[in-house]
């Protein structure tokens, strides 16, 4: 039976190959933490982590992820403890309606790893680089209509500072 590994547990792939990872999470597993904002890879609300890399769950068929490791917002923290970034989001009020928040967090958690790995961004080649600008650029794949961007950047900056201590 073909499976993918979701938040540490094996789950069988859906029968209909047209089922995207996002619809699989919602319809088959009732895991609603990952949100559908546009269904076309234009907003990032459905960002999850696959094989350690962040992707839009709406633009990948579940079957493409056979034998892959998938982490959703439900798997970001352990049990009821919050990931430092989730805590930072609360402190910095980095969300309002909350609908884009799962995607922002999965992106943010990945971003922290990307920085540690030295992955470049467009800001690496900009004539005005700064950490804040870099974080903004790396988070530009996650729209927020409530406009929490400045607070999102602050929350991520807080955790970077925390990790550097």
């Amino acid at each position, binding site marked *: 039976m073909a499976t993918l590994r979701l938040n540490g547990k094996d789950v069988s792939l859906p029968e209909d190959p047209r089922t995207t990872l996002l619809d699989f999470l919602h319809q088959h597993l009732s895991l609603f933490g990952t*949100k559908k904002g546009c269904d076309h890879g234009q907003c990032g*609300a459905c960002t999850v982590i696959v094989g350690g890399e962040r992707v839009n769950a709406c633009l990948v068929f579940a079957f493409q992820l056979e034998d892959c490791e998938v982490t959703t*917002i439900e798997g970001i923290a352990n049990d009821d403890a919050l990931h430092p970034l989730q805590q930072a989001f*609360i402190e910095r009020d980095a969300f309002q309606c*909350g609908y884009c928040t799962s995607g922002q967090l999965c992106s943010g958690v990945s971003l922290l790893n990307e920085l540690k790995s030295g992955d470049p961004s467009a800001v690496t080649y900009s004539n005005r680089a700064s950490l804040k600008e870099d974080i903004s650029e790396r988070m*530009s794949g996650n729209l927020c*209509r409530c406009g929490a961007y400045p607070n999102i950047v602050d929350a991520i900056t807080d955790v970077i500072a925390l990790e550097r201590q």
Partner: protein
Amino acid sequence: MTTHNQPVIGKAVNRVDGPLKVTGRARYAAEHMSERNPLIGWPVSSDTAVGEITNIDTTEAERADGVSAVITYKNAGPLKPFSKPADESRFTQSRAVLHEPHIRHFGAPVALVIANTLEQARYAASLVTFTVKGNAPDLLTSFDDAQQKPASLDGGFEPDVTSGEKPHDDDIRSEIESVYTTPSQISAAMEPHATVADFKDGKLEVYCSVQIIASAVEALAITLEMAPEDIVVQSPYVGGGFGSKLGLHYDAILACIGARHVKQPVKVALSRRQVFYNTPHRGHSIQHISLSSNANRELTNITHKSAMPKAKGYEFAEATGAGARVTYKSQYIESTHRVKDVDLPLIDSTRSPGDAIGSLAFESAIDELAHKANIDPLTFRIKNLPVVHPMKGSPFTTHNLGECLRQGAEKFGWQHKPSPSEGKVIGHGVASAMRMNVLVESSADVEINAEGQVIVRSDMTDIGTGTYTILAQIAAEMLSTPVENVIVKLGDSRFPASCGSGGSFGAASTGSAVKKACEALTQKIMATLPGEYKNARLRMEQGEFIVTNAPDNSTASSAKSALLLDVVDKSAFPLSATGSVSQDDTSDQEQYSCGAHFAEVEVDTLTGEVRLLRQYGMFSAGQILNLKTASSQIKGGMVWGAGYALTEGIHHHTDSASFVNPDFGEYHIAVNRDIAEVNLDFLEEPDYAASPVGAKGIGELGITGAGAAIANAIYDACKVRVRDFPITMDKVMLGISDPQQ
């Protein structure tokens, strides 16, 4: 009895729903009833703007895999016609679809396919064939095309007003006459409209994403020709509203029609493209503005004329001239509004109706006049501030716009521009913001249960505004109990009816209702206390409510304390009381929240690209209920302002009266990198004339004026005045290379 209140109102308390939201456990409309396995409804949309369905064939769709039903106007069941009865407000009228062969606009639903899975429903929808005999659509093509005076304007403003005497030649030293345009725009809340409905034994249970619950119930009752008592609507979490969810829209009607038809739960979650057509947008505007000032740079003429489209059969028009009427004093002020009925999807409120787009034009025009009159735009504004309402002469409850401008400019560093790098120029811009404030009828009840928990209930909604938190803070302070001990339950039509979220009135109105409920509750408790507890106060200590019969700091000998549970019979619990606010709780003086926006931009002189460096604002909106959430609201509005100034616009395909860019790929809301530094301060002065909690609206204050400050900064940087929003780089570039344009 008094309560000894620890100040909690105003504090930067973390959102109480924060843990749910950051762990993905807050449940939004489409996520409910999953255990009941709702069927999926997918609308089939008209590809013609206006006309009659002459033929519709659903046979292939009905035969497709997993399909339960296909509903059209032929079998949708009893429905009251759209927008009937005419004398109901637009939020309580019928919002019926699939009730007639008439197509009202491009993208209107012509059928609903119901199937087991999304893929099955979406594919089967492509198998429905239909023909619409179309007519040429009516659209607003020019200023003069709008001839109709709207019956009323959003906010209760009169369409046409004038005051004072037209200036003579001696009164005119400088003048400008400009035409500004703003494009069609859309709320684009991150959560697409969605509804899950279950029809069981004649009772309708609905989870949807809506800003105002009570009117949603009425709208459904009228539309489906049911009794309101048989309908329960819940919307505990709303993924953004911004006006687009004030009323109920096609997703809700379709889901209910579907559930009624198949007698199973049905979910209709609109796709992003469907949101553009099945829910409201803001119409474009053409604003003719003429201004003049005298030798002393005092305004002698403010004339603002607005033309906008109005969706046929849907009564909504916005007051783009509101700012022109109230922000500055002038010898003569004239403001008129004209509309044209068009064949477009619904045109309704989008964040800060009137002012969001009126301010873009008006505050730009004010700047134009300041430059013409050779005076600093900040000084010009301060010079022309009114003390009373410029047209009516009536007093404001509070009016701190002058201080916002003055102090704001200092904090922003109005005089200090950084040196630009090569090939760039830097500019500063300012804009005033005035946003009307109202108190709207609202109720809440507050309960203390036998476990000593406080529970607040209201059908009020939290659309990201922080309602859960501020209501908890208000109750916590009023009842001297920790915020953590207050449970706030919202968004359920079985709870006391509130004003809902909208028009920036939710927090002050419902917050005041909670305050009054707490007052009523403490009075009620007092009435049940034994005689020795006259003048008692109620507070929580070590997790228990206690009553003490003396004011604090009294000597031990006269103080007498007891657990509330010991002096009130257990059978009396839960103790609860309802609080309501009405127009009696608010002054009939002029009420506005106000602020000053500042922006710093950098413009590339070769490409015209604009980069935001800083946004700053100073705002006065009465008592701030929570510094953290209020700041976020304002910042969010300022981010919208940036989008309105620089990136947003729906483009029209006029032949088909459809939209060219109905998705997030080409409708550009601001991304994270577009936004740089955003800072703000509040000038706090509780305005108890406005509401019992002293607060005024802020949800729409942040966007009002934010875009104009950016437009004015662009002009300051490169002397290019763009009057057609959004200010995209090609317009700036062409302005730089051809200043005569």
